[in-house]
């Protein structure tokens, strides 16, 4: 059911939440200072990921617009790294700057164009040429992935129950245009006894032997052999972040966070993840490479982090609820990431596996 815990007297207890910091120098200052120059649109950032905050340091020209969607503007910065200026519903993430764009508006209609210059000034980011868009970052909160969860993890067998619950949920409620069809085949949950798995789409059929091979190599600790399998999965499948990438991100993020919280071999997981992320280079989109390298460090979007946390520390119903949310709003991308998360749990909970925690 619920997970109400933490510190204090009385019946109410609360968990320590993800630490977020106010970027403003003094909390008493409630009013935004006026924008430096005229702009066609001003957005207010409510949250900045830790990596994003680091990357936008400086003054003057810091990068260019890479692509624009209704929900996001992707910016490529010096050195090739990226940040995304996104709408609220995309959620906080290590490289996201979440803004207060009204629900009815689209990032794509603000007048920003591909290759527009991005300038950094005090307290703000300015995008564009003639019709500039200003993003005020003065009152944004710093988002940092919580690597070590404040709640005590449950026992291994309880976590296994959560994994099965999430696998069942994903098998029945996930979107299967990507690799979702592999969930009942790769993650035992009991659902295979009652439902015949649907026929696999061409991506899933292609991916299945490669995923199996990847998993057994990780299990055996054959880190230097991972490259080929990764190269046969990265960039595969539909989606602006291809399915294979979402799966690999989920896998790496869960391996990292599990090792951290269940006292696994964090160093080995680091090496596995580094190998995966580097093998994916040049095989996929810039944005996806970005997500992969963040995931390798256990850094991920808040919704996925929440799911992993619930799977480790909460009761099955809460883990299920968290999974339902991820699947509902993330659709195919969410489903593919959940597949990766489930595989990460499997590898970690297997005592005989090189990345096992037991």
């Amino acid at each position, binding site marked *: 059911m619920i997970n109400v815990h933490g510190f204090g007297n009385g019946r109410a207890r609360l968990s320590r939440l993800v630490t977020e910091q106010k970027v403003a120098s003094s909390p008493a200052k409630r009013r935004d200072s006026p924008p430096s120059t005229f702009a066609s649109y001003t957005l207010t950032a409510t949250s900045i990921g830790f990596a994003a905050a680091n990357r936008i340091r400086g003054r003057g020209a810091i990068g260019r617009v890479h692509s624009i969607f*209704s929900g996001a503007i992707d910016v490529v910065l010096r050195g090739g790294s990226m940040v995304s200026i996104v709408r609220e519903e995309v959620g906080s993430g290590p490289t996201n700057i979440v803004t207060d764009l009204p629900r009815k508006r689209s990032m794509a209609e603000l007048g920003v164009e591909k290759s527009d210059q991005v300038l950094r000034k005090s307290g703000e980011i300015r995008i564009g040429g003639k019709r500039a868009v200003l993003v005020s970052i003065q009152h944004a909160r710093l988002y940092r992935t919580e690597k070590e969860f404040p709640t005590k993890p449950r026992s291994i067998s309880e976590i296994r129950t959560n994994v099965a619950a999430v696998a069942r949920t994903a098998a029945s409620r996930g979107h299967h245009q990507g690799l979702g069809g592999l969930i009942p085949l790769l993650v035992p949950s009991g659902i295979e006894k009652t439902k015949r798995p649907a026929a696999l789409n061409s991506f899933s059929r292609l991916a299945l032997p490669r995923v199996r091979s990847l998993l057994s190599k990780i299990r055996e600790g054959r880190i230097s052999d991972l490259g080929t399998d990764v190269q046969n999965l990265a960039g*595969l499948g539909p989606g*602006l972040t291809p399915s294979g990438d979402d799966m690999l991100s989920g896998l790496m993020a869960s391996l990292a966070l599990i090792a951290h919280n269940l006292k696994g071999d964090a160093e080995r997981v680091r090496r596995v993840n580094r190998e995966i992320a580097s093998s994916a280079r*040049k095989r996929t989109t810039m944005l996806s490479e970005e997500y992969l390298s963040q995931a390798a460090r256990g850094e991920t979007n808040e919704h996925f982090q929440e799911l992993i946390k619930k799977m480790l520390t909460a009761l099955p119903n809460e883990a299920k609820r968290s999974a339902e949310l991820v699947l509902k709003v993330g659709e195919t991308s969410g489903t593919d990431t959940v597949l990766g998360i489930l595989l990460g749990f499997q590898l970690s909970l297997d005592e005989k596996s090189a990345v096992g925690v037991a």
Partner: protein
Amino acid sequence: MKGVSQAAVLMATPLNKRVLTDAGFKGSEVEKAGPDDLIIAIEAANEEALESPVARVEEMLSSRESMKAEEIRPRSLASAVKVMSDANLALISIPGRFAKREAMNALESGLDVFLFSSNVPREDEVELKEAAKARGLLVMGPDCGTSIINGVVLGFGNVVRRGSVGIVSASGTGIQQVSTLLDGEGLGLSHAIGTGGNDLSEKVGGTTTMEGIRLLEEDEDTRVIVLISKPPGPKTSAKILNAASGSNKPVVVNFLGEGDAGASKQVRAVTLEDAARMASGFVNGKRTGAHPFSVSESRVRSLAQSESSEMSKTQRYIRGLYSGGTLCYESQVVLTPLIGEVFSNAPLKPESRIDDATVSRKNACIDMGSEEFVVGRPHPMIDYSLRKNRLLQEARDPETAVVLLDVVLGYGSNEDPAREIRHTIASAKKLAGAGRRYLSVVASIIGTREDPQDLQKQAKELASVGVVLMPSNAQAARFAALVASRGAVGRKLFGNER
């Protein structure tokens, strides 16, 4: 789509390009595309058939495949108020040190506040309640676990009938016990206003309690008012009793443990069960006398006898393991006059404080929802694991005669407590049996038929592993005393029956 035989929307990564080529999409366009380019590959019968899929794709493309706007999640109270302009209540359960700020924002936006958060500094509480009073608003809390307003449960609470009894309470489980007992008799609640655990402290002075009494006095649906709290300090006590005496409706005052007949309108109840009984007396227009048990003396005695008949001589003590702090307190109130001193981490008097709450000694009632047990874990009303372990620990102790439990149902509680705990109870009894002892497990289920957990199933499953179920927490405690004393306290229980 009409006329379309194949369609794919993919980023032009090396692997995807290969997939496309294999599917028959070839050409220099595909070759030239890089990983950051999007390929829309549509195989159609003719040019015309291409139009609508291309339009559809353009439409799809302009939305980033990421989190959708289905769940409205504003990031601050201020923006929430913008989205829901007719909001009238803020339910706040954030860490105590941040709570004042948000609660104050809520009051300033004209919202009443249900403040579940605990560890809110006393000065913050005073400030909040003064601000609420100035605006004619209510602050239920801090550290308020339950309110039931207009039939809606806020926080933890049971699904109880609507009726004419109003409750103002500093204790959430107090509301739960009284309301479920009333419901069991066919009566119901108008409203239950939680005041938070510290409202009646001398510093806070009972602001919310007084306002709650006033609201219930004005409420046409309320015919009887029940006040529940642990005994407050003398100043606040006098203030409340004064308000109760001057009330236009009968008030049942339950300062747990303080029994004293007052004027006829202001009656004092010792236990929660008493409070429910007196309230129902007022509603029904006739007072019923107090009985120690709902069933006959002979039945109870024989039940107790069969529980204790297999016990070894070493088994002497009662071990209460509680999820509700008030229920733990009430049990001590009931037990102390019967069996003497009861040790606890939430004792009736400081001298009875147990040294180490993780190890019982002599007669003990442990509040397992208190700080030492709950840091970093779910609360025992939701997560039974600590109580399960403790149950086995008590079973191994040759001095344990009876284990007392509260099983609380309703919103916020575990989905299926019986399933959670019954195997452990069976194991505990087996453990005792192996040591030639009999472990008696006595419990009360705090719930109603409408609660999500299926009361009857809970009762059946617990009974099936040998749990003796009593209709109230107070009766469970009395029964435990009867068993542990091998019937000796029967004189005190039944001898003074009026």
